[in-house]
């Protein structure tokens, strides 16, 4: 039943995501109201918005960790009812299992030949030869790399990232951006990145949406060529200003 068996090829491409008239409330608190969103296969979407604006809630709905109060989420044309095996999540915290070594953490779902696959992805994220270390000895950035490797090892078709770089220092964050962008362009999975950091959104995404009061306040394409320089580009600065105004 492990997801790894189902998705053996390393670049499985992406799957489209569609949200139709999604509403979500917790008791009396309405978090998302009548949300429509189509994410084409392979797109890199960034979601920005104020704290408490429902970004994580949106992500949990897509992941199938939670169900919408009304409306529906579909992945690859099929309604999401439970955890979809082609979807992988990166949380704000790395959530590594402290009593498993780095390699075991990456291969947490086990499956065929998991050790060799874990070693390979670890090398992809720049942690070659660290599979026998304990997670506790890693730095914050290295832990997120392990978490990324764990997500990638099963060749996901959708990668959801809930502010995974929020706790990292600026330099490490830029390193992680480069790594993510490179892996994403190699493998072509659909990516949804939740972030507070507008510069991060503009630097990485094909498209940015601003989530505000339960709806989409801005939906903007980022037509900058890749790889992108984080700073400098006046067009990027202009886009950042537009997004900030909408938040």
């Amino acid at each position: 039943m492990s997801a790894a068996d189902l998705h053996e090829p390393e670049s499985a491409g992406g799957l489209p995501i569609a949200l139709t008239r999604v509403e979500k409330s917790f008791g009396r608190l309405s978090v998302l109201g009548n949300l429509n969103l189509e994410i084409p296969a392979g797109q890199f979407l960034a979601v920005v918005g104020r704290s408490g604006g429902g970004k994580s809630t949106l992500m949990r709905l897509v992941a199938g960790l939670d169900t919408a109060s009304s409306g529906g989420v579909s992945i690859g044309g099929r309604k999401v009812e439970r955890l979809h095996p082609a979807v992988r999540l990166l949380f704000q915290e790395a959530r590594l299992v402290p009593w498993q070594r780095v390699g075991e953490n990456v291969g947490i779902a086990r499956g065929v030949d998991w050790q060799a696959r874990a070693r390979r992805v670890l090398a992809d994220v720049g942690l070659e030869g660290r599979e026998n270390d304990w997670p506790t000895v890693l730095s914050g950035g290295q832990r997120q790399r392990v978490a990324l490797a764990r997500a990638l090892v099963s060749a996901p078709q959708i990668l959801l990232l809930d502010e995974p770089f929020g706790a990292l220092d600026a330099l490490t964050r830029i390193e992680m951006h480069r790594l993510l962008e490179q892996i994403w362009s190699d493998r072509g999975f659909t990516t949804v990145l939740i972030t507070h950091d507008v510069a991060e959104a503009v630097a990485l995404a094909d498209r940015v949406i601003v989530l505000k009061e339960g709806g989409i306040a801005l939906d903007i394409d980022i037509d900058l060529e890749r790889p992108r320089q984080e700073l400098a580009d006046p067009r990027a600065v202009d886009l950042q200003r537009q997004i900030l105004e909408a938040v």
Partner: protein
Amino acid sequence: MAETSVAGYAAGDIRSPVLKGLGRALAPWALPIVLLIAWEIAARTGLVTARLMPAPTTIAAAFWRSLLDGSLLFHTLASTQRALIGLVIGGGLGFVAGVVNGLWKPAETLFDSTLQMVRNIPPLALIPLVILWFGIDETAKIFLVSIGVFFPIYINTFYGVRTIDPQLVEMASVYGLDRKALIQRIILPGALPSILVGLRYALGFMWLTLIVAETISATNGIGYMTMNAREFLQTDVVLLGIIVYALLGKLADVATRAIEKRVLLWHPAYQVKQGDRQ
């Protein structure tokens, strides 16, 4: 720590590191040795009544005698066997109950409050009842030991399972772990530090209950040996029995520490850093 010793060395300390290491290894034994010598002198000079508090050498002689006639080994084995059987039964049940109640809410609702109530009865208060039920044979003593070890293991296993980081559990389900893998790879290893704390307490209770049970009714075991010696006013044998208990207790503690060190390798508190001494 390294810095102070380096500083001490620079300040003109010319003793070799080997001697220093030896000195540090012997230091904890200095006080017991002085006490033993003082005790010996006090017993020999008649400062304390030898009948009530025999000299260390008298106890050593009693040790030697009982070693030669095999009685010491016989009684120690009898006690250890009871202790271990009780530990396996009571500890095993406590572990299973802790895991089941920790994982499965209906079981907790059904059993936990009852168990908490029973827990407040000291196992030794059950002795009269246990004698009525089982007589004074092996079953009675093993039953008491089992009860004594059950609760520390149960409570700490339950607590360990319950306090697993829910974020890890969520992560594991996102990554496709089924229930069996979740329990094996996330929940039990995560609960292990707490379970081992339970084991340490359980071992303490194990000897405690056993001593009392054996002094009340037994035909062998260390408890029997000391009670028997008391009737013949062999204070040296009584003290010998007490020392054997202390050693067995210490041995159990050393064993659990060794287990902890082995299985909690991942835990930052157990990762041996360069230059640390245990």
